């Protein structure tokens, strides 16, 4: 995780300019991420950014590190396999609310319960951006979108609450315009051992006319100073406090340590008396009649 000359955020920028619309919240996430990278002196060739499909999932192209731009909803299991095969690499997943909690929603509980050693950053704009504005699983009831001309009929899910329940060991909420807060949370998420998750509210000015930078003004709070981030119930209570998508409490909700997937696989190998020199003839012997 360290290089010779101190890195600057811009050193991590790739040659591909972001294709996001002007004013897209994702720019802020990119900036804070690169700053966090610089602060941590992440090695450019020692990190892999993994994403699915969506505006937010274009993220890896804009960074100089290794990357995988996979299929819609599949970034997490791809990243998990990669991390198990390459524990030496920093594996960070970037994606959208639709990618992560709609089509990809079946993977999150398992990545989290296994305490998979990766960081997952959801750029949550309560809309499907890339496909041009359909309701997403975090869209408010009643929201008018291309697929809900009479108003969205479905209650939104709460990504923070979900990840807490799934067993993530680092859970935070951020907001695209709070650069410093976001940068700190991203940094600590990367430093965290186990599965870390940040839901970053990242407005889509092009298609979401409800949850806008304006609408969040005056509706932002910070996690209270006295919040006990090791208390799951307190974290769940905090996550369920905002009454609407427009109210956001940013900061660290929860952080604990427990054995990670890599720890547990180490245990398995220890029990199996693992050795790089294992002679397969020993396995074959078991098949002698």
């Amino acid at each position, binding site marked *: 995780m360290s290089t010779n000359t101190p890195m600057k955020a811009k050193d991590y920028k790739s040659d*591909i300019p972001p294709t996001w619309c002007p004013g897209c919240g994702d720019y802020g996430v990119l900036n804070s991420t690169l700053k966090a990278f610089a602060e941590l002196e992440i090695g*450019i*060739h*020692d*990190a*892999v950014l*993994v994403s699915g499909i969506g505006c937010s999932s274009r993220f*890896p*192209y804009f960074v*100089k*590190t*290794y*990357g*995988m*731009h*996979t*299929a819609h909803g*599949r970034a*997490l*299991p*791809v*990243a*998990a*396999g*990669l*991390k*198990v*095969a*390459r524990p*030496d*690499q920093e594996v960070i997943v970037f994606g959208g609310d639709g990618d992560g909690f709609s089509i990809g929603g*079946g*993977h999150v*509980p*398992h990545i989290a319960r296994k305490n998979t050693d990766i960081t997952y950053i959801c750029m949550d704009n309560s809309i499907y951006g890339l496909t041009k504005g359909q309701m997403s699983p975090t869209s408010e009831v009643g929201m008018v979108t291309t697929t809900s001309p009479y108003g969205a009929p479905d209650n939104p899910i709460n990504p923070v609450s979900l990840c807490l329940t799934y067993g993530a060991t680092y859970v935070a909420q951020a907001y695209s315009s709070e650069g410093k807060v976001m940068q700190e949370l991203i940094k600590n998420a990367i430093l965290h051992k186990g599965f870390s998750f940040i839901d970053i509210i990242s407005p889509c000015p092009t298609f979401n006319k409800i949850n806008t930078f304006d609408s969040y003004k005056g509706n932002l709070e910070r996690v209270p100073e006295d919040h006990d981030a090791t208390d799951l119930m307190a974290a769940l209570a905090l996550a369920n406090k905002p009454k609407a998508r427009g109210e956001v409490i940013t900061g660290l909700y929860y952080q604990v340590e427990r054995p990670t997937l890599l720890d547990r*696989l180490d245990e*398995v*190998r220890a*029990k*199996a*008396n*693992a*050795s*790089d020199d*294992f*002679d*397969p*003839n*020993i*396995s*074959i012997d078991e*098949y*002698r*009649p």
Partner: protein
Amino acid sequence: MTKRNDLVIRFGGEGGEGIISAGDMVTQAAARSGLEVLTFKTFPAEIRGGYAMYQVRFSKDTVLCEGSVIDVTCVFNKEALDVNIGGLAEGSALVYDYPGGEIKEEVNVPGVFCYAVPMSKIAKDDLGTYRSKNMVALGAVAELFDLPINSIKETIEAKFLKKGQEVVDINFKAIDAGIAHVKENLTKKDPYSMVSGTRKEDTIVISGNDAIGLGALLAGVEFFSAYPITPATEVAYFLAKHLPRKNGNLVQAEDEIASIANIIGASFGGAKSMTATSGPGLSLMQELIGMASMSEVPIVIADVQRGGPSTGLPTKHEQSDLLLAALGCHGDASKVVISPEGIEDCVYLTVEAFNVAEKYQLPVMVLSDGSLGFRTASMKRPDPSTLRIVNRDITTNGENFLRYKLTESNISPMSLPGTEGCAYISTGLEHSESSAPKYTSDNHVAMIDKRFNKLDDLEDFFPETEADCEEGAELGIISWGSTIGVVREAVNMVRAEGIKVSSLYPKLIWPLPRKALDKFLDAHPKILIPEVNKQGQLAKVIQGETGVKPISYAIYGGMPFTPAMIADKIKEVV
């Protein structure tokens, strides 16, 4: 009585009555005594109840398939009797549970030698444990047909000693009771008496699924992820046990999509990676198989086919995933399909599947099937030191590194994370040589051509297509997967009758091995393709690629062919 070089015994009864363990016992024992063995099993799709069947063939020589005729049928209950009675071969033997069991009257089938053995009664009344019924039956059968009783006892000892001497003794007592019953009460009337073998030290007995696991282990698999599914789960069992021993990792994924996603990630990281599944899982994996093809990530997928479509007949035999494997995926995706004919192939072609995947950087599917997966058979012990192991071409040179470079071989250099100057984005979007999104016509054409053309020399790299041609034969048979063994035996049968016939055994199924295939097609005006599916899937594929119109012999009753069926068909069309 002259000894037989070849004998087929079938045990039938209710799932859970010890059919499988009795069968396994005699199979192991026979192999231990130096005979070649090959088994065939069917289970009910339910956990309990329903008819289960275990068939084993013993031979002095290599066993090619399940065989055509069941010489000895041993039934444990009424249902098994009912299922089998209609199909008993003239001159074969029947051993059945009577009196005292479910079968309420003596059985007499004209032309069949029938032996009543009160298995249930002896187990319950004499031994006091109904569960030993299967060993009583085994003892009786062994005595009747000269199976190696010493080896059976050795096998029992090897298996049960860790559970305590009492367990061994109970089983010995049951075996002896079966033997004694035969000696005291029955007169041998049939002509079946198995020859004995000479113990070979380099034989192993292994199932098709374990053999695929072993092949992966020998190929150097480092990461395996799967979701359980019948009849493929045993591949995972094998690797769950053995992979961690060599520092590899197994992950049980939440579903098949996650399992293929897992291995794509691991392979991008540099680990040789594999998953195993059956039809429903292969359907679910279609999107990501296309992604592995597009982003050129080497992966191996073992598909142990079962009866379809949908949930279908999960424990039955079918070869019906070929069209999906070869022609599935939206868009035009290049990929490779390999199919093993038997246990040895399960080991060695799995090694080759890794070789092909690593060399050509794409998804390779190994199409096995339920009867091959569950089959156990003897084979010569593989020697890990003699195997060809091909690893992917890894670049560490960051100068002008282009992950998707258009090269002469159409294979591009691959880098691994951690390598300076070689970072790139592995992507399912159409991309430039450097991996940036690129949608121009020229680029798409160049990249799609690259992904298909890189396979141009695949047949040379993997030339495992065997042509067994006979001078002057008009008829050529083409078969695939576990049907091959049956065809081999059928070809031997009809040739012995003086019929001229050639046979092609392709192991590379997609893309078709055109050199070997075209030569064979050219030489034979009549082509017969037997396979176990409705649509005549290989026939369709070959006709689609070559325009040659084969005679399709498609059966789809959930059971494999017998050599006799193929031989009859050959005689019909020759």
